């Protein structure tokens, strides 16, 4: 890895604190990701991208800005990437998956707030995230009250454009959201000094759809039993998809899928005995949050699918292509993003139906619900998810946690007990 200290210094990072953070990541990556056996060769690209998470990719963003482009940071799957791409911008999902500068963040925010928001502010205050420091604009959204109020505070430190996301999906809500999409267009045009035209937007829709199709293809290959890829590797790819160059990522994911298809046809799996197949559902897991998937997979089960924003929720729906002129395309984009089934919506029947569908399609043995403490939408909606799964007699385990590692032992006991339960209930054991 090259020496990027001069670049980081220019971005205003706190070099000592940043070096400290970079020291923590490789051993964590080793334990959670690299220690896995029989990984596909195509994962090498993603290992490389991760090893350069604060290096080469940041250099690309710096070069992109030097040549007149903008960088836009997002926190959520609701922000239309197509619009950012269409003004010649690069879109990056912002780090918020580790406990960083919690005490500093708690000078601004209450203690009893979800780890994701605290972490996001912690990265900003500690000056250790080169992504947020590279951004010309941050785009927030009203997906929960904590984030909504947090963006007001963050806006004091760096410009934030907040999109108002409706909480229902009726016609009035659609009108509001289509309007919000246009408000973002205006802000992006102002920041970038570029107008969005039909050709650029059509191209952007195609590029992001191709990325989604590649990720959907990968998701489909996770139906294979025996498995050809681990849940942790799939999660890593999804996490990287939030900040890597979309065209290159699409190509690499497709190349990996070619390899996985060969594995499937040749009977090559990630090895080991039969593993119970787990659906992970709930709050997002930003880099480097691999705690729960690692516990699950080192306890002898497989994360076969993730019903999360860092999982299938991110790429499940495509934007309708061929929606006509600029206005038609903007409506098509708005409509696609409004389909997302975040727990902030009421009612949110789509999410329950989707979970049942995933349980069937992915031959799921049990659902583990990952809840970040103090995340109201997801912790409360867990009850309805459990009710739904009870009807289908699918075992359900609710895990409430945060970004600390003190509860690893207790979480491991719960996960292992679930695995024992699933294994003894299966008639095939006898």
């Amino acid at each position, binding site marked *: 890895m090259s020496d990027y200290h001069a670049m980081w210094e220019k971005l205003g990072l706190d070099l000592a604190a940043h070096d400290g953070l970079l020291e923590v990541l490789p051993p964590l990556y080793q334990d959670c990701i690299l220690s896995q056996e029989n990984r596909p060769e195509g994962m090498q690209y993603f290992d490389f991208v991760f090893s350069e998470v604060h290096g080469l990719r940041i250099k690309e963003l710096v070069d992109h800005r030097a040549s007149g482009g903008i960088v836009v940071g997002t926190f959520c799957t609701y922000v239309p990437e197509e619009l950012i791409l269409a003004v010649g911008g690069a879109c990056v999902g912002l780090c918020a998956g580790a406990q960083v500068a919690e005490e500093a963040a708690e000078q601004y925010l209450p203690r009893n707030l979800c780890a994701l928001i605290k972490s996001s502010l912690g990265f900003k205050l500690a000056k250790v995230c080169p992504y947020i420091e590279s951004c010309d604009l941050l785009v927030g959204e009203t997906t929960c009250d904590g984030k909504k109020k947090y963006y007001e505070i963050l806006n004091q430190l760096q410009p934030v454009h907040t999109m108002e996301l409706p909480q229902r999906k009726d016609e009035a809500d659609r009108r509001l959201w289509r309007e919000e999409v246009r408000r973002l267009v205006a802000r992006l045009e102002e920041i970038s000094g570029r107008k969005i035209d039909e050709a650029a937007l059509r191209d952007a829709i195609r590029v992001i759809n191709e990325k989604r199709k590649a990720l959907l293809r990968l998701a489909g290959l996770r139906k294979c039993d025996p498995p050809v890829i681990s849940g942790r590797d799939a999660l890593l790819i999804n996490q990287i998809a939030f900040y890597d160059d979309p065209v290159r990522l699409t190509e690499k994911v497709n190349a990996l899928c070619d390899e996985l298809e060969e594995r499937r046809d040749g009977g090559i799996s990630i090895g080991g005995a039969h593993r119970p197949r787990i659906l992970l559902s709930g709050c997002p897991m930003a880099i480097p949050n691999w705690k729960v998937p690692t516990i699950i997979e080192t306890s002898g089960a497989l994360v076969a699918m993730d019903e999360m924003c860092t999982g299938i929720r991110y790429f499940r729906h495509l934007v309708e292509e061929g929606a006509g002129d600029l206005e038609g395309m903007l409506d098509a984009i708005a409509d696609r993003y409004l389909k997302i089934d975040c727990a902030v919506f009421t009612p949110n029947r789509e999410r329950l139906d989707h979970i049942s569908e995933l349980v069937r399609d992915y031959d799921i043995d049990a659902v583990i619900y990952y809840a970040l403490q103090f995340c109201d939408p997801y912790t409360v909606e867990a009850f309805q998810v459990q009710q739904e799964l009870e009807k289908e007699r699918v075992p359900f385990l609710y895990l*409430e946690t945060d970004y600390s590692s003190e509860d690893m*032992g207790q979480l491991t*006991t719960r996960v*292992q*007990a679930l695995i*024992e339960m699933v294994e003894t209930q299966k008639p095939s054991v006898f």
Partner: protein
Amino acid sequence: MTVAGLDIGSRTIGLVVVNDGEIVFREVVDTTFDPLEQCRRLLAQRDFDVLVATGYGRHLAQANFADQVITEIKAFALGCSHVFPQCRTILDIGGQDTKAISLGEGGKVADFQMNDRCAAGTGKFLEVMAAAMGLLPEEMGRLALQAEGEVKISSMCTVFAESEVTGLIARGTPRPLIARGLHEAICDRASALLRRVGVRREVVFAGGVAHNPCMRVLLEERLGLQLLVPENPQLVGALGAALSVLSRDDVRA
């Protein structure tokens, strides 16, 4: 075949040695700050073919001397159904965890619930509260039974509850009433956990806190049924761990 089951909990370590389905040895010691040394001391001069560890220290044991590990959920299910074959629901209140387990066919775990990550409503909570009142935990249970009436303790967080208790003492509230309130608070928690898995008879109460007479009385009142308490409630996990090997052999045969 002789099997040793070792349950390494946060407060105590239990050992049960089973030979041909008969318990030939049992002992409980404190976990202390050096659980590995305590285990070695317990296991010294014991003969067995297989050692199965359970409890929160099971992975430590596996890294050092245990042949197999199972979770305490499975261990309690096996142990309780051995002692009471009619058992369908288990409440285990241990040092740092409270578990409610529902058993299905053949004593298999059908569902389970555990407390939140903190020690709210566990044996540790009772210990801290007893200390705040200058009592031994067993004294606090006896005192609580004598109380006529109670005061409401609303905090279940150990830290907050301790401040609440300190406040009650400062206001001159008699200790038996506070002790009763604390037991009621744990009872609320435990019965809510039990209801989440469903309360079906017979219900077995195990774990260290099952020694506490007040908890037992209050839980029986609250649930409207009689609880079955094993003779050695702290050793059920170790027994289950030992039986896990035997039952697997039975299935094979």
